């Protein structure tokens, strides 16, 4: 039933789009129908342009995201556990969080030049702060009862961090990681749009330069599909499994 509703809505949207495109309100070069867009998508996929661009974008995203996680989670942990980090580092983190990630690009271009590093820098800056703030929240939200029982059982040091604190905060951390991923995805495409980079963003820019609206729309569609797939397949599955095991939700 849920699936039927979702599918129905999708079909309706595409039908509306097709009708609008055929009605001739806008010129068909500026507002192509879904069939033409799909055709263009298939063409780009079959000549390898789409695949290549996706691989390049995802490659950057994965590298930058891995760096963000590697920095963000420990940073969040430190902010939550050490007074110095809480008092001195946290305001800095919150301050930088107010800066949209793409604003780092001009600086990144000057520092690193027109290359991958600049984009990686922007993506890391876009997601690392969100991840560390979410981690800090999750660690601070640890059930105080578990902290007490750990204390009375004599769980200390690394065993406390890896056996109690991290697992206890894990559901919250995963939610933060999901958020970080979507920040990273946005920052990446914004970065790729602004200079020649060979990713999905560049494919969009090229569509604009060639006045090929069909291609622009096709790439947008591809970006939506990739974003939704990663969110659904990767994060929601992991999150749901985790919440079930932790007993936070009753099994559906």
């Amino acid at each position, binding site marked *: 039933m849920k699936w039927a509703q979702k599918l129905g809505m999708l079909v309706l949207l595409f039908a509306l789009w097709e009708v609008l495109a055929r009605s001739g309100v806008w010129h068909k070069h500026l507002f192509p129908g879904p069939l033409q867009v799909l055709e263009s998508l298939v063409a780009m996929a079959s000549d390898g342009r789409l695949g290549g661009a996706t691989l390049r974008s995802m490659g950057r995203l994965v590298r930058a995201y891995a760096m963000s996680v590697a920095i963000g989670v420990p940073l969040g942990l430190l902010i939550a*556990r050490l007074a110095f980090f809480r008092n001195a580092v946290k305001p800095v983190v919150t301050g930088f969080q107010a800066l949209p990630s793409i604003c780092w690009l001009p600086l990144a271009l000057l520092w690193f030049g027109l290359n991958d590093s600049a984009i990686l820098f922007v993506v890391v800056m876009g997601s690392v702060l969100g991840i560390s703030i979410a981690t800090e929240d999750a660690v601070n939200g*640890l059930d*105080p*009862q*578990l*902290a*007490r*029982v*750990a*204390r*009375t*059982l*004599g*769980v*200390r040091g690394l*065993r*406390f961090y890896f*056996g*109690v604190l991290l*697992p*206890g905060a*894990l559901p919250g951390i995963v939610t933060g990681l999901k958020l970080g991923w979507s920040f990273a995805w946005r920052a990446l495409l914004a970065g790729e749009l602004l200079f020649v980079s060979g990713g999905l963003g560049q494919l969009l820019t090229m569509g604009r330069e060639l006045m090929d609206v069909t291609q622009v729309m096709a790439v947008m569609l591809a970006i939506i599909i990739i974003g939704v797939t990663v969110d659904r397949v990767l994060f929601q599955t992991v999150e749901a499994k985790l919440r079930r*095991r*932790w*007993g936070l939700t009753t099994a559906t």
Partner: protein
Amino acid sequence: MVRRLFERLRGLRQVAPHLLRPAHVNADRAKIAIAQLDHHYANKVVALKDVNLNVRSGEFVCLLGPSGCGKSTLLYALAGHVAPTGGTVAIDGKPIHGPGPDRLLMFQEAALFPWLTVRGNITFALAARGVPRSERRERADTFIQRVRLDGFADTLPHELSGGMKMRASLARALAVDPTVLLMDEPFGALDAQTRVHMQELLQSIWMRAGKTVVFVTHDVQEALMLGTRVVLMAPRPGRVVEDLEIHLPMPRSLEDPSLDAMARDIRHRLRAVEGPVLETHPPEPVPRRTQTPSSLPRPSIVTGR
């Protein structure tokens, strides 16, 4: 029928006095020695005033009293989770500083790690106490059996009922083998039926393991059912008013008529202590608890680093 009832009534009146006798324990022979203990919280509330208590090895001592009499604070001071502002607490003659492997505190909540199975919870605790890896599983299974949770070793806490969670928590506490077990109203959150089962289980385990237990409760029947000794405490300021030994053989049953007689006696003594308060708060000398009393601050505990 009438005769039996009469006999029973007469029995009650006679039985109670010699079943409860004042306890006298020398400090130098005690397992736990508490001397002139004072504690007040930062907000100047006096939680404990001049508390002296000596507990022999292997005793089951119930701290009994109304909300705010400092019984939990006393227990937390024993556990080392609260640093008292005055006096000394010593175990085996050594003053305590902070939590130690010789003592284990159990809470009203089972406080199992939700991401670990029942067995995982126990082996994790054993690992923290430095038990070698090869022995952990076997030891965990022994204690899972002892609390009659056979077949639930691989179950996650959220799949267990309240009583089963508490049994798992008890298994974890017993497995790490502390010499002193400190229990803070461990059955307070359970329903009446389950509570009785847990009391019987705890009694049989205590008789077998011979651990020193300090048990906080404000249920008179529970204290008399389980304890070899019952320590009556009173609030404002928190203090010990009476220290009685219970001379009733184990295992005991809640249906035992002499238990009822003793309970009446104890309630009477508690009422006498609370005296003036009773005028403003009629009946209910012993609040049936549904949750942690919140009229006074609970000992607050800082997370270990």
